[in-house]
C-alpha cells in the first residue's frame, strides 16, 4: 500500500466510525456552543463592545472543544485494541500520524463551520470574512498537528485526558497568540496585508510543528 493510500484509509476509517456514532462531533460542538453561551452571559454584564473580546471567545471555544476531540481520537484506538492492529499493519508509522491528524483536523473544522455562523447571530459581528477564515484554518491546522502527537502520548499515561491540556496549551501558545492577534486586528477592519507578520508566524509554526511531529511520532508509538 502506498503511503498516501494508508493515510487515506486511516483517515476514512475515523470519518466512517464518526458518521455511525457522531460521538466526537456532537460532544465537541455542544461543548463549544455552551462555552460561547457562558461567555455571552459573562459579557452581557460587563463588556460594552463584544467585538473586542470575540476573537478570544472563538479561540477558547475551539481550543477546548478540540481538546475533547483529540482525547477521544486515541482513547478509542487504545481501548478497543485497534492501535495494535495499526501498529502490526505493514505501513509507515507516520502514515498513522497523518491519518489521525487529518481526522482530528476535519472534525475541528466541521465544528467551526457550524459554530462561526452561530457566533455571527449571537454577537452580531461578521466573523465570516475570508481573511478571518484563513487565520482560523491555519490556527486549527497547527492545533491538530501538535495535538495529535500529544494525544497519542497522553493516552498512554496514568492521567490520560487530564494531562493533554497541560501538555498541549503551553506548546500551542505561539500559534494561539498569533491567531488571536490576527483575527482581532482583522475584526477591527485592518487590511490583510498588515497582518503579514502574524500570518507568517502562524505558517512558520505550522511548518516547524509539522516537521517535529513527523520526526518524533515514530518514537511515541513504538512499543
Amino acid at each position, binding site marked *: 500500500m502506498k503511503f498516501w493510500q494508508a493515510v487515506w484509509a486511516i483517515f476514512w476509517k475515523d470519518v466512517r466510525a464518526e458518521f455511525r456514532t457522531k460521538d466526537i462531533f456532537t460532544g465537541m460542538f455542544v461543548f463549544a456552543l455552551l462555552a460561547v453561551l457562558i461567555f455571552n452571559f459573562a459579557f452581557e454584564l460587563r463588556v460594552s463592545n463584544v467585538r473586542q473580546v470575540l476573537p478570544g471567545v472563538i479561540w477558547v471555544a475551539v481550543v477546548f472543544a478540540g481538546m475533547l476531540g483529540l482525547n477521544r481520537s486515541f482513547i478509542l484506538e487504545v481501548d478497543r485494541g485497534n492501535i495494535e492492529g495499526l501498529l502490526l499493519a505493514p505501513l509507515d508509522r507516520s502514515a498513522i500520524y497523518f491519518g489521525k491528524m487529518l481526522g482530528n483536523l476535519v472534525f475541528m473544522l466541521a465544528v467551526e463551520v457550524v459554530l462561526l455562523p452561530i457566533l455571527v447571530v449571537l454577537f452580531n459581528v461578521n466573523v465570516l470574512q475570508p481573511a478571518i477564515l484563513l487565520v482560523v484554518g491555519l490556527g486549527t491546522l497547527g492545533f491538530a498537528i501538535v495535538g495529535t502527537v500529544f494525544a497519542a502520548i497522553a493516552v*498512554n499515561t496514568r492521567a490520560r485526558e487530564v494531562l493533554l491540556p*497541560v501538555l498541549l496549551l503551553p506548546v500551542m501558545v505561539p500559534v494561539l497568540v498569533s491567531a488571536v492577534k490576527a483575527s482581532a486586528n482583522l475584526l477591527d477592519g485592518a487590511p490583510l496585508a498588515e497582518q503579514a507578520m502574524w500570518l507568517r508566524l502562524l505558517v512558520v509554526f505550522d511548518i516547524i510543528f509539522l516537521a*517535529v511531529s513527523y520526526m*518524533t511520532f515514530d*518514537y511515541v508509538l513504538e512499543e
Partner: protein
Amino acid sequence: MSRRIGLLEGLTVLIAVLTVANLYMGLVYARDPVNLQTEVTRKAQHIFYYHMGMNVMAGLGLTTNFVAGILYLITRRRFWDVVARSAAEIGVIFGVAVLATGSLWARPTWNTWWTWDPRLTTATITVLLYVAYHMLRNAVEDPNRRARFAAVYGTFAYISVPITFMSIRWWRSIHPTVFGNNPDAQGGFALGPTIRTAFFFSMGTFVVVFITFLLLRVRLGLTEERLAEVREAVMVRLSRGAEVEPVREGGV
C-alpha cells in the same frame, strides 16, 4: 568511583567559595550604573548579576535537557534520560528564580511587580512547559516509555527557549538587552568597567554551579535507578519464595 566523588566534593566546596565571592563582586565591588536616574533603581540594578546568572543556568539546563533527550532517542541509554531529567529540574527551579528576581527588580524600575511584556510572557510559558514536562514524567510508570515520551515532549518544549531569547529582539519590549540595543527598554544600563568584570565573574560562577548541580543530580539519579533495579531483583526472588541474601553492593 572514589575519584569521581573526590571531584564532586571539590566542586561543591568551590561553588560555596565562588558564590560568596560572587555576592561580594555583585553587591560591593561593582559600582552603581551611572545612567540610571534614581538612587533606588541604581541600587536595584545589582540584582542583575544574579538574575542574569540564574537565567544562564536555566538556559543551560533546558539546552542540556534537549540534547540529552535526543541522545536518548538515538542511543537508548538510560544514562541520557537521567541527564535529561536532572537538567530539566535545574531548568525549572532556576527558571522560577529568574522570574522571581526579575519581579523584584521590576518593582523599583518599572514600578510594577509584573507586566505582560513579550519577554516576561515567553519566559513564564517556558517555565510552565517544563513543569508540564515533569508532570508527564510522573504520569508514566514504565521507565523506557517515560524516557521516550519525555524526550519527545522536551523536543517540542525546547522550541520555546529560542523564542524567549529572541523575544526582546523581535517584538517591542520594555525588557533591556545586555548586549545590543533595544530602544523601548526601560531600566537598561551602560556597562562600566567594574560592572563588566562583576558580570563575567557572575556568569563564570553560575556556569560552575550549574555543572556541579548537574553532576550531583545525575549521580543521585543513577543511584536511584540502581536502587530500583536492586529492589526489583529482590521482589522477583521473594515472589519465587527463595531466601533473600543480602545484596552485595560494590559502588557508591
